[in-house]
């Protein structure tokens, strides 16, 4: 699926992959995020962290009417305040998508798929 925008000059199509890449990059820069995870961890056989080229498996863009929704699947670091980290991701993703793609996202839904415990 792709997102189509219309303006007076014509249309702009952005594939899901592009949006996933932008969203994923923004998310992994957030403090407390260890990485992106797959939506269907068992089916995809990817129990761990997604590599860049697979971000689309963990970022789902939905369009309902005129509103865009993003569902994203992340792994956070143990010992952080997870709700706050998730909130930071929401705000960073909304900001980045607005800035880079010019899209206003109605909701960013975070699914914490895992907690990575480091040896501390």
């Amino acid at each position, binding site marked *: 699926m792709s997102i189509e925008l219309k303006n007076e000059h014509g249309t702009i199509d952005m594939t899901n992959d592009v949006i996933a890449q932008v969203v994923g990059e923004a998310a992994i820069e957030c*403090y407390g995020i*260890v990485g992106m995870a797959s939506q269907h961890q068992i089916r995809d056989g990817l129990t761990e962290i997604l590599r860049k080229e697979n971000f689309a498996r963990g970022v789902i863009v939905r369009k309902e009417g005129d509103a865009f929704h993003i569902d994203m699947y992340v792994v956070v670091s143990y010992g*952080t*305040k997870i709700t706050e980290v998730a909130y*930071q991701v929401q705000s960073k993703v909304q900001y980045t998508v607005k800035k880079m793609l010019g899209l206003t996202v109605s909701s960013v839904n975070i699914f914490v798929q895992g907690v990575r415990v480091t040896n501390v």
Partner: protein
Amino acid sequence: MSSINGLQFAKMVEMGSHHLHQNADYVDSLNVFPVPDGDTGTNMNLSMTSGAKETTLHAQNHIGLTAQAFSKGLLMGARGNSGVILSQLFRGFSKRIESKAQVSVQQFAEALQYGVETAYKAVMKPVEGTILTVAKDAATAAVSHIDKAEDLTDLMEVIVEEARASLKRTPDLLPVLKEVGVVDSGGQGLVYVYEGFLACLKGEDLPEKTVMHSMDDLVNTEHHRSVQGFMNTEDIIFGYCTEFMVKLDSDKLLDMPFDEEKFRQELSELGDSLLVISDEEVVKVHIHTEEPGDALSYGQKYGALTKMKIENMREQHSEIMDRELTNAAPEQHKYAIVTVSMGSGIAELLKSIGASAVIEGGQTMNPSTEDIVKAIQEIGAEKVLILPNNKNIIMAAEQAAEVLDIEAMVVPTKSVPEGLAAILAFNPEATVEKNAQVMQEAASSIKTGQVTNAVRDTSIDGVSIRKDDFMGIAEGKITSSEPSLEAVTKRLVSSMIGEDDEIVTIIYGEDVTEDDAQEISAYIEQQFDHVDVELYAGKQPLYPYILSVE
């Protein structure tokens, strides 16, 4: 002081929290990253306050337990990116000393270092030039100072000093800070916390809010926010950035006492991005307004004006826009792609997607090595990639690449569609070798088909062919032969489209009318609903249809 206990540590925390609290507004004003929403100071302050509250509540002689309380309070109250990072820094710190009743200079430095390591582990992609960098540099300085440190106060001095120095370097590490002209907000917050620690150890009082020096930073962030908001110069409503200071005049103040709130209120009617900072003697004002004169006259009611600066923001803005446009202008042909094809339509198509020169040639009229060399020399390129687009021209192209004394490589494309796919994969930033490799991969990812007519009766690859029949060739192999051009083309395409294919590109030749081509296109789209068809007039001879499937 060579070691500290829990009660002393609790005091340090309290002082750090207090100092941060005092300066939270200033920290807010620096906030441009990751999201310029101006809340870093507020968030850090809330986090730190929660930490300090928990520490005071559970303060005891045992420093390990006191620090644990601090860490827990920070975690519970963590707000914002910097708040979460702060909580991680001290989670590691407290973990390291959890069993200690007292902490020595060395242990304190090591605990800081451990805190930094913990904080770095919690992020996939640490962004440097932030609070993380400041914490890291300060801890590194502390550890290397262990042997020289006279006591904890001395160590803390080194920490604060390095934290400040590191903070100053943040704009070099994080471009957005440099662009706006501020230091990192979270880093600044951490410096305040450390300064609080130091003041406590020294038994000094901290200066109350530092006011005047912060105006420049405030102005910078305010500008950053407004610049981001404008796409077009015409959108600027308040065109003049006006800054001035008023030296409050005691005579004038007799009839008109200065009230900052009122002053701000009345000025705000003249424009936006208003900043007012005052102490007993001077008022500093920054405003974006369409009537700079009115703002100045208003200020003058309270005293003499100094340090006035008025700038036309529309001019500045269009200059920035112009500069961005000029920067975007492409470099001339230093890096060229030279390719070979038949038909003016195909040549145009190739050029439109990035070929620098197209040499006329192909089946039955192969260009010579010399033709290729000449074409490249005419462009005057420094680096060149050659796409022969035909099996029989690859040799000539490779010879040409050897003869040339510039960097040249051949991407052995065997057909026009392969050439098109290869050009689309070209990256002007990459090296010639890298491009050759990536373009070759792109070329081999597509399937090419061609339709041409037979010049004599024969049998090839198990297909019997009669003179003047049309042959369908998929990937260089003849797959079908029929008297009807339309039938053979449809059969060829149908046999080539697989389940994962999405796009069929059809380039029709000079002997085919657009209507005929349209019909084929419509047929494909009808038969395979997951496929899109792109149609181009290639005007090539000999091959009525050249097509690719990908």
